């Protein structure tokens, strides 16, 4: 398989052009990687619609029967149940850390125990989110799995 990559600063957006003779599992995998890399969430904010890249999302919180999508310095609304969001974002390193919060593992800076033995996750923007005891094990496994995958 030949691979050509060109840097073009004049482009409005990044794009990948795939040319193939037959749709093999490998080509399908390339499609999958490209789709996963830029998964877009259609969110709302003050009546306007926004396209938010899932990779830019720090965490998703279920508040007042809707999902609030938190990026580094903004909050958007997504009118979808948290369960649905969890299923959609499951393959994109999002994991549930409490009954109403899904967190992007890539955006977790550190975890710490408080004096009350409540564990909190510090995000890359300094925000702190409580991790429920019930979901601690799952988060630890996800972090370990990701670290192994990346090493």
């Amino acid at each position, binding site marked *: 398989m030949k691979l050509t990559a060109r840097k073009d600063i004049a482009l409005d957006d990044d794009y990948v052009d795939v040319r193939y003779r037959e749709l093999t599992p490998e080509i399908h995998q390339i499609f999958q990687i490209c789709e996963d890399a830029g998964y877009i969430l259609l969110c709302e904010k003050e009546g306007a619609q926004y396209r938010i890249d899932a990779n830019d999302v720090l965490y998703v919180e279920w508040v007042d029967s809707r999902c609030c999508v938190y990026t580094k310095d903004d909050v958007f609304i997504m009118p979808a149940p948290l369960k649905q969001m969890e299923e959609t974002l499951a393959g994109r390193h999002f994991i549930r850390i409490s009954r109403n919060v899904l967190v992007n593992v890539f955006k977790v800076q*550190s975890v710490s125990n408080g004096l*009350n033995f*409540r564990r909190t996750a510090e995000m890359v923007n300094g925000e702190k989110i409580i991790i429920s005891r019930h979901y601690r094990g799952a988060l630890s496994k996800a972090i370990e799995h990701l*670290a192994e995958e990346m090493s």
Partner: protein
Amino acid sequence: MNKRYSWDRFFEGNKFVLICVIFTLFVIAESVTNSIFDTVAYLNFEFVFWTIALLSAPVFTFSAFQRLWQSNYIAERDYLFWVSFPLHYLYSLVLIMLITFLHGFFEQLPQGVYLTRFITFTFFYVLVTIGAIVLDLMQTEKDNKNLSKIQSKLKIQ
């Protein structure tokens, strides 16, 4: 069938409560009949008693205790640890004293058995609690190491 209402989920969530209930029933039955383990009754009782008490202590505190009381209010608040631990300790202590009291109806117990059990239970409870806290801190340390690995890899990319 929805897993929420299945037996699997019931046992998964309440197995330790179930163990303690079975144990309590066993102790009562054993005390009532007093013939099942006639010769080694007291030894057997002591062994099972402390094994179950020690096994159930941390688990009760962290999960089954909350389920037992169905108290999401306590679980979602910051004072979780400082409320649930003393409550669980008192709950377990009352349970132990109650079983001892019932046991005393059917068998002559040594003098000062209440005090002995109070001291032994408190000692092991503190020991198990410290163990649970240390394990928790170790897990946090491990998570942080893995998170720094992830963050450093992301920075390189």
